């Protein structure tokens, strides 16, 4: 079956057709196509679903190293760079860093963003030291981000656990919470920050970042909860939401459903599906000589 072949018409089931999904201009802010033991094979295979679900551009979260080993040479870096060039009309990348090592992180940003193809910084939650994004170590990284006018994506969770049992109590030592993002945002109000996964617990995550206008929320990688997008729009405004697919480990179906569940205008859906991300990426794309329609 080819990617554009369907045996039911989505419109008959109250859902957008593929043409309508394409018209939303979906930018996948959270793509794990290269997160695998066989990253090239996985990437190529996943393109079937990218095509099928009408995703316009994917932002790979691991370009240059891996989330677990962001500074170690990665045997697939060369091939991934070739793919970034080959698929530049539909693929971009962030490079992962580790604030436990601020000098190495800044060097990596110089290499992969200023002098390389990447368009954003990725904070994983798996750093080797117990350093989250609110730690002072982050300041040189954020100063460099400000200089480059590049956004920062921060993985966040609020895993319930610990003693006393509370949201965030079961986070990994270096895993940031939305509250950490809020502290960082206060210090760097001119850098666009994406609070990844909404902290998982979106009701609390949204509250944590609410006062900080430079923080955008991203819903991917957590379960789809009916009402979550409308809640975030009420509290943050539609201009502060970005969409992520988190494929291939999550279904595009899961992530699209979160936005389609919301009773909002087409214009607002377009902002969430891609417009807001294009807005905060416009400068870095311009610097790299890539023209994008807003």
């Amino acid at each position, binding site marked *: 079956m080819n990617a554009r072949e369907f045996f039911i018409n989505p419109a008959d089931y109250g859902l957008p057709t*593929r043409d309508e999904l394409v018209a939303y201009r979906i930018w996948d802010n959270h793509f794990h196509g290269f997160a695998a033991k066989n990253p090239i094979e996985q990437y190529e295979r996943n393109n079937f679903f990218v095509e099928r679900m009408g995703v316009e551009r994917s932002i790979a979260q691991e370009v240059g190293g891996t989330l677990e080993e962001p500074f170690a040479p990665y045997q697939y870096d060369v091939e991934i760079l070739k793919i970034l060039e080959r698929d530049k009309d539909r693929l971009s990348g962030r490079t992962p860093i580790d604030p436990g090592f601020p000098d190495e992180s800044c060097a990596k940003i110089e290499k992969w963003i200023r002098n390389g193809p990447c368009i954003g910084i990725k904070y994983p939650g798996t750093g080797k030291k117990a350093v989250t994004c609110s730690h002072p170590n982050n300041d040189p990284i954020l100063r460099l981000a400000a200089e480059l006018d590049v956004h920062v994506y921060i993985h966040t969770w609020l895993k319930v656990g610990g003693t006393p049992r509370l949201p965030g109590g079961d986070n990994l030592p270096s895993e940031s919470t939305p509250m950490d993002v809020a502290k960082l945002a206060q210090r760097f109000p001119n850098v666009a920050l994406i609070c990844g996964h909404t902290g998982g617990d979106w009701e609390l995550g949204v509250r944590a970042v609410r006062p900080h206008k430079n923080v955008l929320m991203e819903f991917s990688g957590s379960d789809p909860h*009916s009402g979550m997008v409308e809640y975030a729009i009420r509290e943050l405004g539609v201009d502060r939401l970005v969409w992520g697919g988190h494929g291939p480990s999550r279904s595009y179906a899961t992530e699209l459903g979160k936005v389609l569940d919301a009773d909002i205008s087409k214009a607002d859906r377009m902002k969430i599906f891609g417009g807001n991300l294009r807005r905060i990426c416009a400068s870095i794309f311009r610097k790299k000589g890539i023209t994008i329609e807003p």
Partner: protein
Amino acid sequence: MNSRRHFFKTSFASTAAVSLFGPLAQAAERSGSRVAGIIDTNINVFDWPFRALKFRDTQALVVKLKKHRVIQGWAGNFEALLAKDINGVNARLAAECRKHGRGFLIPFGSVNLAWPDWEEDLRRCHEVHEMPGIRIYPGYQPFDLDHPGMGRLLQMTTERGLILQVVFGMEDPRVYHPIINVGPVRFRPLVAALKSVPNAKVQLVHFAGSGSNEDLAQFMEYPNTFLEISRLEGNGAIARMLGSVAGLPSARAPLDRILFGSHAPYFPIETAILKLIESPLEAPQLHAIMQGNARRLLLPA
């Protein structure tokens, strides 16, 4: 695929395409509609204990489901998670389902093996409320599937021709309210219990499938065992479960055992329908999952 085979492209007129979809079109014609409907085997009514859900009002939920071509919803009651008066939970569920149109919401009451005289609750589900099955929520209800009563429950549901829906989760444990500390439901004791009641009708609800390949394969060796799709994750999850596309590792289940389930109104109904669209499925496969398998499961043994 034969290039002459008829397929739908979104630029085609849907009426022209639907008439060519074989089983889906036949099912649609039987229902008097031009589009085949969906039997959703996993919805719940009333209030989720920890959040006011968008579609917590049953009338609003029914309208929403119908908008998305759901023709029947198998409904549990969120109250069954924590309540002690399970019979009251079941009576309210039955009344609510009747109120919103006979034949659309099908009540699946509950029993709690940890509460005394659950057998009487089961009898009432069957004889008083005429339910086709029951739904248990291990973990939230304080028992696991190795509870000594599980064998008896399987025996009783089988004797009565009831479907036993076993819920493997309601939400991501990482975002539980701190006062909830429900451990993972262990699947293996259920598979073991089926040895003595091999004809039991059992459906896994909100079952992730990952990490239990061998157990699932054993489970599917029994003739009346099913699962639904609400918890399957990853691009192409349904097709991967069927083995028709490669990708991330997936537990396998045969086509005739997979049911549609949305977990609405906790999950958006849209996500489960989009999984049908995302996976490359042909018309007979879609028909089986959307309604064919559920109709067969509902038939008397």
